Structures are given as structure tokens and as C-alpha cells.
């Protein structure tokens, strides 16, 4: 869809001045818009494409702070756990105000190993989670297959992660957009931001490609992997976000639900059941810049690994082959909150593999920061990469 001219936007907009302009209408940008409106701020959100159509639409929607925990990222683990804790109420509130389902499923997760090497690696993961006080349970292959009979008989070991769930990111973004709009946020899909207007180290608005301007005191950059390239922001205030390519398959069981109940994770990928016979098989992790080509190698590797653990995967129909770009930072953690270099510039980007998980917390934290509270931990300060960018 071609981007609308700025004049069209302004003519359809009541105001040309807002408290906050949000650049990017994925799950995190929309959550910030909704939560900022709840605090009484006037909000305008711009996205050059359709809302939730880029990275968020490709995300599988795993809410998996325990499965994804890494010993080298303690602050990120804590952030993920806090957001996971907020998810049930967040989903409930969103469904209440919109009447739309978000596909939140408290289904739990199994992490499975197919041979001795993988089983030993799983034992190490289990020990790490015990050390961190995260609830995981070691299951014998027979126990794992008793709860998920579609798992292959060759299974070697499984870890049960009862608190890691899933949500449908596409349903989530639709509901978030409806909630934000009903709360009074002005949402403008199909409108690109040409640059952020900054003078004397202070934000005064954004400029559209046609030269029109929208005035605002604060800008939130939530443009995912494109956040690093937004014009007008001085080098010292930038966040080094890079695209990390992920290929995946959307599969559908013509005979309905039942193949898998839980999220199944394995070395090289995962299967996420939507509960209605649809499954997401993902995902590659590739450093390929903004390339979004579907490759034979990527699909083959995903299918090869998945069918070894869940042979029934090969009976499913392929609905779609989505490719997405995760916003990655050098330490895998998001950039949240205020720039110390430019007044009025805030970031909600760099969520990498965890954007859907972190959406509720990102909305809450940014809304608080926008109203003058300092709530973001230093580990996520947007300026922590100053040495990398310079």
C-alpha cells in the first residue's frame, strides 16, 4: 500500500499538535498508545504500513521468559517474568474493552530433546533454571508423551515449563488498535515519518514526506528493526538496532485441533498451537540485513527438525510462509524510556525475540515515563550503547 500524503493525514486529523507522537504501530507501539491515552495524554501513532503488519504479524506469540532465560541476561529475564505476570490481566482488560479475542492460551510449554547430546544440554538448562528459581520439571519421555502423544517415540528427554504460554499476535494487534482508537488515540496506518524534528536537543515534532509537520513535545520510537535509521536523530542519541531475519511456516490441520496442546520447543525451532488446528513452526535466526526472502534451506531445516520430534507435522497444510525481521540490539535487551541526549525523545524498540511477551510491560513503562515517572531500569536505558553507535 503506498504511503498517504501528509496533507491527507492532517485533513483527517482534529489536531496538528499532540502530547505524544508514536512512530511504529506494532504490538509495542500500540500498547504504548493505549496506555498513554489511559493517562490522559493526547496521542498520535503513525506507521508507514498497516498496523501490526510487520514484525508483530510474523511473531509466533510465545510468552516464554522461562524457556528463553539465559544466564548472561539476568535483567532481561526479570523483565520478561514481570511482563508475563501482567499478561493475564492485560489480555483480560483488552478483551473486555474491545470484545475481541486476543488468543491468549495458558497452555504451558515442553522443551524436548531428541538424542543424548540434546538431553545433556537440557539437563544443563534445567540446572540453570533451578539456580534462578524458575519452575521447570524434568519429564521422562513416557511422561512427556502421555501429555503430548504426538511427540515422537524417539524422544529422549523433556522439560516442562508450566508458566510459559502463548498469544496470537495478529489478534492482539487488532484488539490493541481498537482499544487505542476507542480510548481516543489518533492512529494513522500508511503514513511514513520522514524525520523527527529536533532543535537545541529538544523534540518539537515529526515531519511527513510531503513536508507537513505534526507538533509534539515527546516522540516514542517504536519502529522495530527500522528504528535505527529514523532521520533527524543525532548519532549520539541513536540506538543500534539491526534486523534479525526469521522464517517460519503457518500450518493448519484440516482435521481440526488436537495434534498438540502445549508449545513444543526443540533445538532449532518451536511449534506453537493456536488451539484451533493452526500451528506456527518457527523460526530461523539469520543475520541477513533487511532481506526477507523465503529460502529452501530455511524451510527445510525447520521441517527437518520439527518432523523428527512431531512426525505428524508433515500431515499439516501450509497456509503461509511468513518472514519477519526482529529488532536486535548488541545485548539482546530492548531500549526503553528516555534519551538523556535529546529531551522528549523516548524509545520502545530492540525487543528482539520478545516483543509480544514484553508488550504489556512496555506499554506500562513508557506511559509512566511519558508522564514524568522514572521507572525503567538502567539495564534498558536507550543510551547504554553510546560507544557502539559513535
Amino acid at each position, binding site marked *: 500500500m503506498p504511503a498517504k500524503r501528509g496533507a491527507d493525514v492532517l485533513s483527517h486529523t482534529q489536531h496538528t499538535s499532540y502530547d505524544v507522537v508514536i512512530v511504529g504501530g506494532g504490538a509495542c507501539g500500540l500498547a504504548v498508545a493505549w496506555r498513554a491515552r489511559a493517562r490522559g495524554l493526547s496521542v498520535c501513532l503513525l506507521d508507514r504500513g498497516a498496523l501490526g503488519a510487520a514484525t508483530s504479524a510474523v511473531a509466533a506469540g510465545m510468552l516464554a521468559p522461562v524457556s528463553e532465560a539465559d544466564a*548472561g541476561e539476568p535483567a532481561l529475564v526479570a523483565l520478561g517474568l514481570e511482563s508475563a505476570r501482567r499478561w493475564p490481566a492485560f489480555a483480560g482488560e483488552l478483551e473486555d474493552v474491545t470484545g475481541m479475542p486476543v488468543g491468549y492460551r495458558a497452555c504451558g510449554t515442553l522443551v524436548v530433546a531428541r538424542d543424548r547430546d540434546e538431553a545433556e544440554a537440557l539437563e544443563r538448562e534445567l540446572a540453570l533454571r533451578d539456580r534462578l528459581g524458575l519452575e521447570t520439571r524434568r519429564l521422562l519421555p513416557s511422561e512427556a508423551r502421555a501429555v503430548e502423544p504426538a511427540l515422537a517415540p524417539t524422544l529422549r528427554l523433556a522439560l516442562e515449563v508450566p508458566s510459559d504460554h502463548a498469544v496470537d499476535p495478529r489478534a492482539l494487534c487488532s484488539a490493541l488498535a481498537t482499544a487505542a482508537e476507542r480510548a481516543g488515540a489518533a492512529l494513522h496506518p500508511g503514513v511514513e515519518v520522514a524525520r523527527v524534528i529536533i532543535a537545541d536537543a529538544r523534540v518539537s515534532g515529526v515531519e511527513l514526506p510531503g513536508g507537513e509537520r505534526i507538533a509534539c513535545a515527546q516522540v516514542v520510537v517504536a519502529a522495530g528493526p527500522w528504528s535505527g535509521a529514523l532521520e533527524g536523530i543525532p548519532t549520539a542519541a541513536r540506538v543500534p538496532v*539491526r534486523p534479525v531475519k526469521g522464517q517460519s511456516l503457518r500450518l493448519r490441520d484440516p482435521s481440526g485441533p488436537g495434534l498438540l496442546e502445549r508449545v513444543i520447543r526443540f533445538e532449532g525451532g518451536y511449534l506453537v498451537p493456536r488451539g484451533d488446528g493452526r500451528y506456527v513452526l518457527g523460526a530461523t535466526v539469520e*543475520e*541477513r*540485513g533487511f532481506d526477507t526472502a523465503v529460502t529452501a534451506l530455511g524451510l527445510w531445516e525447520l521441517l527437518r527438525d520439527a518432523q523428527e520430534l512431531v512426525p505428524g507435522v508433515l500431515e499439516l497444510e501450509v497456509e503461509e510462509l511468513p518472514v519477519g525481521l526482529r529488532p*536486535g540490539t548488541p545485548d*539482546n535487551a530492548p531500549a526503553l524510556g528516555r534519551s538523556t541526549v535529546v529531551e522528549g525523545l523516548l524509545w520502545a524498540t530492540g525487543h528482539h525475540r520478545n516483543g509480544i511477551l514484553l508488550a504489556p510491560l512496555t506499554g506500562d513503562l513508557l506511559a509512566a515515563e511519558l508522564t514524568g515517572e522514572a521507572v525503567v531500569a538502567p539495564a534498558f536505558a536507550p543510551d547504554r550503547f553510546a560507544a557502539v553507535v559513535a
Partner: protein
Amino acid sequence: MTVASDPFVIAGRELASRLILGTGGFPRMETLAEAIRVSGTELVTVAMRRVDPRSPHSLADVLRECGVDVLPNTAGCFTARDAVLTAGLAREAFETDWIKLEVIGDERTLLPDAPELLSAAEQLVAQGFTVLPYTTDDPVLARRLEDVGCAAVMPLGSPIGSGMGIRNTYNIQLIVERAGVPVILDAGVGTASDAALAMELGCDAVLCASAISRAQDPEAMARAIRAGVEGGRLARLAGRIPRRLHAEASSSFEGLAEL
């Protein structure tokens, strides 16, 4: 050769560090950068098929910021044809004639395919590449690779990522003994002592990836393996004592008081 002057030279190029780092498997870009810094390495290998060097803030940028040179590799290639094509792409992308040649014969073990490897090496040398082939620990194949003009040979200690160390020290010694080009132990290093052993056996350098990138603390393991390489090299130059069946007292009995 003395301990004081001990240059490591491949294809006329002198390197201060005898550790070459692989970039696969690091949990974070930042961790990779830190491991590179503390390892002291000057040469870092990158899988050409997995990387787009033009992408901002990606691997190629991180390596540039670290000030290390890139040694592209042909990981993921199963035929000589694919490897030669991939090497050509790497030359263009990274502006280097150096190529770490990998031609894999089997998915499960990732062991080299000897005939395809030799064929690819011959073609790439003819095209002007500086070829560093990843090979089995077969002394005859190593010799053949040298004969077709490879600038070094890179025998495995054990399969890639297995961390099983050097399974056949005799073969590595045979390769070292006959080689007229540098011998770089590639694959199998699991911890610092494996790297030290490789250097004690007379290898000129060690390439290491998973042992560092998948360690619980990659930065600490990078320091450890650097120390292993340096210790092993010093020990090789110092000359170890022969192994004996019986004890030999370290202090002489001469000059002791006769009581």
C-alpha cells in the same frame, strides 16, 4: 626457533595471535565483541552463507569495530561447486582472497568430504585464493592439500562443536611433522587444555568457536583458551622432558651432607 622471536606467518602475513576465533553460536553480539577483545585474536572466521556484510550493526560491523580481519568460510557447502561459488561471493563481499574452505560430507557429523575438498581447493588456488582448508586428521590428505597449493591445513581434533578434544594425537603429530605450511587445529576444542595440547603437539595455531561461544561464561572461556594457546606454544618451544617409567629426583644428590 627461540621463545623470544616466534612469528606466526600464513601466506606471508604475520599474525601476533595464534588463536583464530569462529563467530557462530554467540548468544549476544556484545558477548562476541567482548570475547574477541579478551582473546587477543586478529583473525575471525565468518560463515559466508549466514551473513549479509552490508547490514548495519550486524556481524560485519561488530568485527570492523573490533579491528579484526575477516576470514570468510564456506560452511554449509556440500559440493566443490557450491564451495567455489560461495568463495567467490565471499571475495566480493569481504574484499579478501582468503578463504577458509569447508566442504561437508555429512549432516550429522559435519565431517569433511575429502574428494570434494581437494577438488575445491585445487580450483580456488587456481583462481588466486589463499586457501585454508578444514580437513580430517588424515596426514595423506593434508599433504595432498598442501601439494595443490593451500596456504595452511586445518585438521580437526574431533567433529565440529563436539568439544571432544583431539581424538588422535598421533595423526596430528604426523601432519605437523610433514607439513611445509602452517597447521591450524580446527574443530573439537572443548576447553583450554585441548588448545594447549594442540600447541604442544606442534600446531601453529588453534581455531575455536563453540568452546567459547557456548560456554556458560564466554568471555572467561575466551581468556582461558587464549592462555591455553599461549601456554602450549611456550611449552612446545621450551621442549618438554622425555617421559620415563621410573622417577628421577629433581635435585641432585651431590653436595648433600654425609651423615
